[in-house]
């Protein structure tokens, strides 16, 4: 795993009255334990990876509480796992990244929500929305609405988040419906504190198992004809029950304000940024006291009609603040007010944009727009508009002064084993021409950025091969699908490989076997060398492919660019029809370096012999064309001013962060670039023979008129 969570694990052990300090997503983890869960599971992904990562490292805490932890192979498995709460009084929680994970889980979610649950079932969804996001922007809200799952969207401070988790389980049990708790990326990583409670052992768990299955009840199945009864139950019983629970428990908040003829309805997750915007406009203080009345929806779905009507009654206008589109809440409020014949004007999209992240500047602008339109009494609206306008102007003038700056997208790490594969694909394209590249989710999608710019489509995690199914038969050349080992086990083995074989396709599949789900923080997966328990999971991609019936299969060490190039050309040119799989084998360099650093530090301390390699470029030989950079893209391979007074173009250089993977040398060779690259091998703690050989070479080369080192070893 990418990092150690020992401090976070300690914080999971805090007892009643002690103060938890840490980030939001770990606070959720602690809240789960305080709620007495019997099982936890999920599939990793930003921004919720830490929830599982912490638990994986907290084996003793889980054992003590009897909590079962499942690191699921995909989100569908995680959602299906909640099925335990349909028949048994077991509280359980699963987590994944949304919207993508929710899409994958959708089938199980429908079939979970229909019969409903008797044990509290919670889904923690991390919204990877806005700056730094890696998925398409769609609202998880739609899933909650269509399936009848209650959606919590707490204010982004730790006490509220923790309370929402605890009350969410109660809500789920009281209404027999599963609950989603939505956290945006910044809320997952927000730091704060809350007063902890003792962790709770569940009544039934691994420590106290249930005697046997319940008596057979057809009503617990999502299967006709009971689905019709369940459909009615969802809207006629569970929904009103949820609305009652939310109202009685006061899950939503009302902040009073003296500007009583207007109001703001805001989703909990956005409430702090709205309060800050009001503070900056002089309408709130730093402690959350606002002049504008605010209705904070810590429960985004369902809306409680009485609460909304009560809030809007007597107001000329309200602003609804919800990020993304469609404007579900704005529409719902319109309908509720119409039904109650309340004439309050509802503003929302229009003042605020339909698309894009609601950053500080966007909210400030939107609020100013709302005030200008609604003109509440007792407020100098023009002064506010002027203030917002000045900030906007400031932004525009700063942007104009700088001009367009080049983006800095993420890229493959130094020494990444996946990069050489794309170097080889680029070289292959030079020889046989371009072909369709079906990209996938994972670190390898960085190949879509410069300098590779490879990839024609991305259809989802593990979907690359399936997404090329109709491309191959319609294109001159065989398409190449790229898939990580993470994507392979997530679903690519079935949707991609089995589907391709079943339909006798003729494509090329490259599987990046780096041993972890690296992009999400190097979690273990079925073909990892070791699992969270330490023992190898024992599943093997090559054997799996063979058993499925893949005939053309090559395993190539990724750093061997020439080999990879030859294998690619063979796969593209061979007359043999059928699926051609290349397993690009090379351990994630981040994980490898973490291991090596410890090993090497140990060796150095022990005085054991150690050879370290690093690469370099001869300034004098490099002519500053940068072909090497265009073929490698390594962060450690960069440029520096040309030391030659006659030349102006910067020369290539290898910086200190080089891990000696050898790609630059390989590329220089495979592409016949230039003779400027060299490798230095330094022997730390040399033995007698190393010293002798070095001294001898030094002496002879000295006779020949050269000089290696000052002193002869």
């Amino acid at each position, binding site marked *: 795993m990418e990092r150690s969570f020992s401090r976070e694990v300690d914080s999971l052990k805090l007892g009643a009255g002690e103060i938890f300090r840490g980030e939001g997503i770990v606070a959720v983890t602690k809240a789960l334990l305080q709620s007495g869960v019997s099982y936890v599971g999920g599939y990793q992904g930003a921004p919720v990876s830490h929830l599982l990562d912490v638990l994986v490292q907290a084996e003793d805490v889980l054992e003590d509480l009897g909590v079962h932890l499942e690191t699921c192979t995909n989100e569908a498995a995680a959602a299906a796992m909640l099925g335990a709460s349909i028949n048994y009084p077991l509280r359980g929680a699963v987590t994944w990244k949304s919207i993508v994970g929710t899409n994958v889980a959708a089938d199980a979610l429908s079939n979970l929500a229909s019969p409903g649950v008797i044990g509290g079932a919670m889904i923690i969804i991390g919204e990877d929305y806005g700056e730094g996001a890696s998925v398409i922007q769609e609202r998880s809200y739609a899933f909650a609405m269509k399936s009848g799952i209650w959606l919590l969207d707490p204010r982004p401070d730790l006490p509220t988040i923790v309370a929402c988790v605890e009350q969410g389980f109660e809500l789920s049990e009281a209404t027999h419906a599963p609950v989603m708790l939505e956290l945006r990326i910044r809320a997952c990583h927000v730091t704060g504190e809350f007063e902890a409670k003792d962790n709770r052992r569940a009544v039934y768990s691994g420590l106290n198992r249930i005697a046997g299955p319940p008596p057979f009840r057809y009503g617990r199945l999502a299967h006709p004809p009971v689905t019709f009864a369940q459909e009615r139950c969802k809207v006629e019983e569970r929904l009103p029950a949820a609305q009652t629970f939310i109202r009685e428990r006061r899950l939503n908040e009302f902040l009073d304000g003296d500007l009583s003829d207007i109001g703001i309805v805001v989703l909990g997750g956005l409430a702090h940024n709205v309060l800050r915007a009001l503070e900056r406009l002089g309408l709130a203080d730093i402690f959350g006291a606002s002049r504008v009345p605010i209705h904070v929806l810590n429960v985004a779905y369902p809306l409680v009609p009485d609460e909304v009507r009560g809030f809007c009654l007597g107001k000329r206008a309200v602003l609804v603040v919800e990020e993304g589109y469609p404007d579900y809440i704005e529409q719902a409020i319109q309908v509720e007010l119409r039904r109650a014949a309340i004439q309050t004007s509802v503003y929302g999209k229009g003042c605020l944009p339909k698309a894009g992240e609601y950053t500080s500047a966007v909210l400030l602008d939107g609020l100013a727009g709302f005030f200008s339109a609604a003109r509440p009494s007792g407020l100098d609206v023009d002064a506010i508009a002027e203030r917002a306008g000045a900030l906007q102007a400031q932004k525009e003038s700063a942007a104009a002064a700088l001009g367009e700056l*080049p983006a800095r997208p993420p890229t493959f790490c130094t020494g990444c084993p996946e990069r050489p594969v794309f170097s080889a694909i680029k070289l292959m394209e030079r020889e046989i021409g371009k072909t369709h590249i079906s990209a996938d989710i994972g*670190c390898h999608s960085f190949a879509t950025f410069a300098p590779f710019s490879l990839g024609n489509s991305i259809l989802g995690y593990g979907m690359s091969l399936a997404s090329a199914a109709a491309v191959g038969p319609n294109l001159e050349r065989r398409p190449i699908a790229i898939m990580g080992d993470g994507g392979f086990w997530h679903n690519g083995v079935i949707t991609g490989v089995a589907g391709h074989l079943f339909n006798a396709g003729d494509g090329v599949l490259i599987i990046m076997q780096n041993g972890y789900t690296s992009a999400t923080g190097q979690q273990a997966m079925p073909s990892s060398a070791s699992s969270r328990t330490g023992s190898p999971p024992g599943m093997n991609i090559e054997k799996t492919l063979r058993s499925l019936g893949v005939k053309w299969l090559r395993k190539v060490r990724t750093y061997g660019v020439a080999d990879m190039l030859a294998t690619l050309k063979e796969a593209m040119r061979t007359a043999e029809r059928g699926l051609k799989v290349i397993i690009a084998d090379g351990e994630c360099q981040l994980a490898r370096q973490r291991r090596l650093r410890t090993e090497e530090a140990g060796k150095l301390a022990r005085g054991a012999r150690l050879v370290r390699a690093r690469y370099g470029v001869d300034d004098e030989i490099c002519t500053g064309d940068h072909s090497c950079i265009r073929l490698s893209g390594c962060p450690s391979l960069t440029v520096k001013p040309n030391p030659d007074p006659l030349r102006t173009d910067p020369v290539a250089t290898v910086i200190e962060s080089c891990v000696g993977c050898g790609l630059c040398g390989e590329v220089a060779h495979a592409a016949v670039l230039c003779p400027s690259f060299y490798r230095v091998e330094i022997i730390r703690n040399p033995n007698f023979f190393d010293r002798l050989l070095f001294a001898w070479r030094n002496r002879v080369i000295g006779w020949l008129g050269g000089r290696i080192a000052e002193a002869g070893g």
Partner: protein
Amino acid sequence: MSPRPIHLLIAALGGEGGGVLTGWVIAAAARHGLPAQSTSIPGVAQRTGATTYYVEILPVPAAELGGRRPVFALHPGIGDVDLLLASELLEAGRAVGAGFVTPDRTFVIASTHRFFVMEEKMAMGDGRLDDAHLVHAIERQAKQSRLFDMERLAAQSGSMVNAVMLGAIAGSGVLPIPPELFEAAIRQDGKAVEANLRGFGAGLAAVRRRVPARPAADEQDRAASATDAVLAKAAAELPDAAREIVLEGIRRLIKYQDVSYAQLYLRRLANIREADARTGAGGKLLREAARHLALRMSFEDVIRVAQAKLDPGRFARIAKAMHVGPGEPFAIVEFLKPGIDELASVLPPRLAGAMLWLSRRFPRLGRLHWGMAVRSTSITGYLQFRLLRALKRWRPRTHRFRAEQQAIEAWLARIAAAAEISADLAIEVAECARLIKGYGDTHKRGSANYFAIDTRIIRPALAGRIPAARAIDAVASARTAALADAEGENLARCLAEIEAGTPAAPG
């Protein structure tokens, strides 16, 4: 009047330890009893991509708030940032461009160090952004700024850049937290404590000391090889603007071949010098032509590569750069992949001609290359390079040498002819030599681009079919286009556009 939190925005690159840095800041605030909150956007975007961290600290101890809790925001606001800290110059510029730096409020502390983005690195010529432009924009927008090389301070301290940044935060005085508490946060973490404290101290001192924005450039090591006194005298008569370049050219060519080759250089320059004076170019034409002529005459053949690999002092230079400890044995492995072209280049013209004809006739032969990884610090490896280097005396009789001299003469003739029209056109033509560089495919591509520009713009211009003003512009844009992409798409488009406006050649 309610208190106002202090807003700290940190712009950094993934992998620089920004998460640890914000952790230190939060820990220090907690030690001081101040309510604080940090947030960040980690995830895949962190893998060396641009990222930000955001911290809010209330400068009033929690104990004095009477149980009230501040509401902190998750996003920085335009006009609201008190301290912008950037680990890299472009990232500081990005934060300024996004509007987060305002003259009434923001203290900017940024590293002058550049970590080039791919777009800058992969350009075929020089794609780097103008640092001065960034520095100017940052300083103009900021209320106050301190720009210094954090990367260098980190390297000197043996710490990560985040420790230097923490020191800078402490030294800025923007936060009401004494430096000892930040140090205590580092100690509490318990990782690389000594190095991090050194980095912290360096960052703190740099902010307080008002380090100049632009550190003086390193003095270039221009250890001159023997320059013949006579040649130096000849050079002394040259115009100021060109003197340094010509001297460098002379040194270069003596080392590359011999004194008489350097004399040839001066003879070749004589015509240019005359044209420079005649057209009133003020030495600029001479300087540019001299620069490119020296580079063209010291073309990159295998002999030159061997010369460079065995350059006295190279092994020691590499050992120093790679931090080889005293008494530590090391080896250097050189990557070479000569092909038919390289082999032919050191043969006499007739033999080389036959070989090249064969390689054209049999393309497989033309693609033949020998991949070699030669250990130049071993005795046999050293001897291989020695042998290659010894071919220096044989060089004037090689095929490549003859071919290069012909090409150089043709290029000089073009410059001279262009100078008849205008000095600017002559300078543009001289500049085109920049396209011819590198080895193997790179060299072939560059030469082909040069010839395309020569045939399709320079010659028609010299023949008077393109007006001078337009020709100057056309040559410059074609050159830029040739350096825009390796596939030649930009150049092809540019040449087509230029030709569309050029009368066809007679006949």
